[in-house]
């Protein structure tokens, strides 16, 4: 595992993708962490966790430690909490400025009367449990980070995303996504929260091949979280992402890892390098950051093939290989070929003398990466 100062977060270079969320000055955050209400303090600490600047965090902690009045507060947030900590907010149809919104349910609270709140809460819990029980990871950042979710974002909003420090769910418009479906899909929740894990580990840049790999990693662990929750082995799993989230007439799911390009009406994901789509990396909304949701089909298929060849529960071996590669080997600019070589290498180390390494090698060959 990559270690960093205070063991409180990743190398600063891995956080470049979230630089734009760091909006409040550090001394204001310090004041909130120190004097604010519990909610303000938690929000300040989340912002710090997403800060692009490790130096800022060090300076803040140093500042708090030097002041005898605030040692308690400083120490309180340096201690790694044990167990899951979830909080769900209602954005009440507001936009970015409304986040996180009105607090509706915390870790020890009874279920709310709002299904979306409870679904986001339960999905975060299942995701936490998977990472903790299977991979030994304590929350998104590996340090017990509170998992914050906001539901009812925007108006008829057709998306769910990880904004660098929390989960954001729209209700769906009923035109593209089925109303209320995004919080019901455990692999969507696992996919999004895994973007947070990637942010705190490899920091894969969100464009072109590193971006498609980032997307694929989220599909891999989103699917594994669902498989683990259902107790499904590799041959029993459907390998679909977001099954039932789209209107039924548009298709069965957002993506198929087993058979890329077949999940919905406009699905044109490739499952082999010969069909790689080299889209411009220009922020045009139609180009998807250089096709990150399109070309992810290639590493998705490689993972499926490796898991299917190894057999059994996909999270036990293939998942372990991919997780180790993500957290200990990948860099922000890792491309498909590098990812392939690194996963093959890790498979050999974790399962020396077994058939796993050959299965991983063959999988990447079958999709034309190696």
């Amino acid at each position, binding site marked *: 595992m990559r270690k960093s100062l205070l063991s409180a977060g990743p190398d600063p270079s891995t956080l470049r*993708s*979230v630089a*734009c*969320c760091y909006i409040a000055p550090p001394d204001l955050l310090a004041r909130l962490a120190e004097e604010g209400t519990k909610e303000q303090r938690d929000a300040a600490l989340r912002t710090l966790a997403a800060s692009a600047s490790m130096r800022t965090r060090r300076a803040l902690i140093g500042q708090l430690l030097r002041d005898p009045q605030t040692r308690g507060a400083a120490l309180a947030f340096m201690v790694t909490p044990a167990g899951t900590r979830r909080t769900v907010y209602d954005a009440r149809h507001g*936009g*970015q*400025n409304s986040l996180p919104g009105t607090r509706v349910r915390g870790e020890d609270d009874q279920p709310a009367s709002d299904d979306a709140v409870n679904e986001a809460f339960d999905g975060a819990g299942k995701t936490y449990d998977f990472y903790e029980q299977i991979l030994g990871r304590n929350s998104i950042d590996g340090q017990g980070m509170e998992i914050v979710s906001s539901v009812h974002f*925007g*108006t*008829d909003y*057709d*998306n*769910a*995303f*990880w*904004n*660098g420090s929390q989960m954001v769910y729209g209700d769906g*418009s009923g*035109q*593209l*996504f089925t109303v209320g479906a*995004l919080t019901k899909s455990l692999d*969507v929740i696992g*996919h*999004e929260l895994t*973007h947070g894990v*990637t*942010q705190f580990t490899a920091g894969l*840049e*969100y*464009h072109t091949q590193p971006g498609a790999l*980032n*997307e694929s990693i*989220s599909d891999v662990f989103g699917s594994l979280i669902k498989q683990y929750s259902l107790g499904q082995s590799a041959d029993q799993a459907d390998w679909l992402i*977001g099954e039932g989230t*789209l209107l039924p007439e548009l298709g069965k799911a*957002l993506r198929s890892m087993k058979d890329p390009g077949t999940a*919905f009406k*406009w*699905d*044109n*994901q490739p499952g082999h390098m010969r069909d790689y*789509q080299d*889209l411009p990396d220009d*922020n*045009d*909304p*139609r*180009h*998807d*950051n250089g*096709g*990150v*949701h*399109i070309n992810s089909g290639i590493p998705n298929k490689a993972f499926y093939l490796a898991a299917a060849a190894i057999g059994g529960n996909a999270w036990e071996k293939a998942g372990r290989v991919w997780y180790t590669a993500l957290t200990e080997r990948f860099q922000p600019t890792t491309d498909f070929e590098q990812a392939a070589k690194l996963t093959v290498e890790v498979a050999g180390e974790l399962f020396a003398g077994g058939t796993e390494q050959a299965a991983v090698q063959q999988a990447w060959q079958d999709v034309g990466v190696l």
Partner: protein
Amino acid sequence: MKLSIIRGGGIAGVSTVTELDEGALSAGDAKTFRAKVAGAEPGLSAAGADSQSRHPDEMQYDVTLSDDQTTRTARVSETALPEAVRSLIAWVDAHPQHTTRVVPPGGSS
């Protein structure tokens, strides 16, 4: 005046193009539309034409205003979307005269 909103990215990676033409609106709705556009103008101008976006699964928007003389496009990401622009988009989405079509991932509009 015509407004075109291209939305892309998002967890599905699907783009949609939504359009509303002032000419198709009643006098009352046209007035509201112009007021909404005027309210969104400062935000659209500030957004510029190439707002950076690198949050996973965040949506990205191209908002284009055109009339007989000019066409202006603001490119903005979800986390930078001004509230007045969001409000304009929500109003257009809710108006029965708008049209929306899907652009396949990687396709052109």
